[in-house]
């Protein structure tokens, strides 16, 4: 299922246009400029070329089968185009335009009639009201935002399912800056046919995908979603961002349980039960997806911190230990052997206690030895290592060092502060699939998510 959708050999753009204000123009441009290698068939009632490619007056005129049709015509014309897709047995159709159920009752009726068209057919619909898809590996990009406005991420390990198109595009733009990659992006839009559950199933099987990030506004088949999520999370981690947290739930409140049962509380319990991480915004969504995709979960509670700046180490310790404004884990008590080894690597005013402070004097070889010793200390369950660019002795080699030591048993999460060399460091860590984060808070929160997955798996005999 969905093989041809994710790897289409031929794509038709219905409503393709030379007019720069039309959606059919933006999508054609994105398809061409992103380097999609399959065949592109523009379809427009008027004869001629579109962006230099021969255009057809109808899908039928193409006279060969396409794997995917992208419909960009206005809502009122969508019905007829889908009808033609069904008769031509086009397996996948993305309906880009809005103007359906999100606008009211008449839009809902049109959606219903379109849905009726595909009953018993070979055609599956994605959307409507969607920006479509972006697949880095086939460079298929149906987004309607011009490339000079947003950038698209490189190929990576995270599948991104989003109910909102704009949030999806903007998030992809944000993560691109740090070289964070994705395995696929799909915007399910009004999901009149294919929904999040079917894509979840696909990405569960997809070898490129190591973690699945999901943004949802509604769960129409919540039970199924839960059951899938629970099964998938036994092996592949998922992160869910669900909006509408403060919506009142529709119910005839009568007993105390009913009064206490807000929709958000049930969603929260459902996600915990399914072993999914919960994100509260787009930054958390991708941070948590990365840490879960790149690192091994851990169930222990003892955290070691390595820094070259005292303040950063102390703030991190507070965040690690505090329950009220932190994650309520413990700073590891290092063994005497560990401390003796660390003392050999640091200057006298450094700290061999946890948080380990190498000070501005800390160079790459001593950093490597300290991390090595911490990996061996049996009182340590996970490590936060800071790569801070303010000292001359810190350089890009730290990426290779942490990468090498991450192969050992305990996960290492990296914190980076700064924007010049700092950003370069983040990009390099990302390339090495080391979870690195541009703030203290983000590295600690991501650590907590990795720990929670460890606890979940362990208490179910899976770790």
């Amino acid at each position, binding site marked *: 299922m969905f093989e041809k959708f994710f790897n289409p050999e031929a794509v038709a753009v219905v409503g393709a246009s030379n007019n720069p204000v039309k959606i059919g123009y933006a999508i054609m441009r994105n398809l061409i400029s992103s380097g999609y290698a399959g065949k592109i068939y523009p379809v427009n009632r008027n004869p001629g070329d579109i962006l230099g490619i021969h255009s057809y007056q109808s899908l039928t005129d193409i006279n060969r089968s396409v794997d995917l049709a992208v419909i960009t015509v206005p809502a009122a014309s969508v019905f007829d185009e889908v009808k033609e897709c069904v008769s031509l047995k086009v397996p996948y159709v993305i309906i880009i335009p809005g103007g359906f159920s999100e606008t009211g009752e008449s839009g809902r009726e049109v959606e219903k009639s379109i849905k009726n068209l595909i009953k018993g057919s070979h055609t599956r619909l994605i959307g409507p009201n969607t920006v479509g898809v972006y697949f880095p590996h086939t460079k298929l990009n149906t987004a309607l935002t011009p490339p000079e406005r947003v950038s698209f991420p490189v190929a990576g390990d995270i599948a991104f399912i989003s109910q909102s198109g704009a949030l999806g595009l903007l998030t992809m733009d944000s993560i691109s800056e740090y070289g964070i990659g994705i395995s696929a992006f799909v915007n399910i839009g009004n999901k009149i046919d294919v929904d999040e559950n079917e894509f979840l199933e696909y990405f569960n099987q997809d070898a490129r995908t190591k973690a699945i990030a999901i943004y949802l506004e509604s769960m129409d088949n919540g*039970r199924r979603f839960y059951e899938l999520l629970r099964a998938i999370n036994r092996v592949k981690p998922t992160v869910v961002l669900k909006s509408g947290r403060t919506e009142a739930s529709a119910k005839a409140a009568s007993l105390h349980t009913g009064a*206490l*049962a807000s929709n958000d*509380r049930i969603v929260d319990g459902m996600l915990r039960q399914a072993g999914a991480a919960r994100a509260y915004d787009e930054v958390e969504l991708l941070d948590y997806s990365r840490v879960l995709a790149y690192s091994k979960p851990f169930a222990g509670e003892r955290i070691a911190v390595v820094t070259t700046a005292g303040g950063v180490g102390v703030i991190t310790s507070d965040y690690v230990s505090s329950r009220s404004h932190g994650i309520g884990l413990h700073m590891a008590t290092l063994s005497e052997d560990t401390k003796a080894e660390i003392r050999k690597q640091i200057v006298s005013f450094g700290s061999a206690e946890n948080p380990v402070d190498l000070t501005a004097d800390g160079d790459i070889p001593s950093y490597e030895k300290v991390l090595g010793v911490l990996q061996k200390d049996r009182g340590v369950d996970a490590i936060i290592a800071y790569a801070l660019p303010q000292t001359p002795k810190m350089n890009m080699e730290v990426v290779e060092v942490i990468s090498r030591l991450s192969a050992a048993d305990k996960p290492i999460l990296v914190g980076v502060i700064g924007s010049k060399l700092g950003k370069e460091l983040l990009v390099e860590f990302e390339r090495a699939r080391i979870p690195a984060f541009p703030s203290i808070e983000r590295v600690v929160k991501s650590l907590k998510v990795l720990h929670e997955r460890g606890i979940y798996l362990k208490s179910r005999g899976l770790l």
Partner: protein
Amino acid sequence: MNLGNLVASIRKEEVTESVLKDTFRQLGILVPRGVTLKELPPIMDLEFPVVLKVSDEKILHKTEIGGVVTGIRNKDELKSAFYSMKAKFPASEFLVEEMIEGGLEMITGIIRDKDFGLSIMIGTGGIYTELFGDVTFRLLPIDSADASEMIDEVSVGRFTGNGFRGVKADRKAIVEFLLKISEFGIAAGDFLEQLDLNPVKINYQQIYVLDAKLIKTKLLET
């Protein structure tokens, strides 16, 4: 009697508090010893202190309307409490139960959610739970790992292990209790709309359901 038969037997009748408690008793869940009555008999096989409650399916929140008197220490107190309550609710039945003192109060409930179906809840604090919001949910059915995690997500978890200020709650006993409620919920799945067990009293390993209410789905009534 097995769970299926038990649930089938309450499926059709009015599920009053005493019917529900009888069912729980047969499932191995502790409920206070008690008697359902319309008139006060001369002799009752109950130990004081007792609690007097109105038992009427139509009354959902009896505390708020004076339908509960706790801490009744002797026959005379019971008599006067009974007649003043009878004056208030002349058509209802009443429940006299031995009072379970001390311990930690918890709420447990089940609700049918429009997206996720039957879901189970626990919360700390009995009548104060709504104020504190110290609750957590799971979808039915739950397993023992789910139950244990629920306990830790609310303050009840802090009374497990060594307890807190002398009040102790046994994790294993709470887990077993929640699994029984989960099984009951699944068995009653076709007619259960909401279930309130509030309060549930935890005295270390002994977990008593002090009050129980069940609302059936509207579909069944038609």
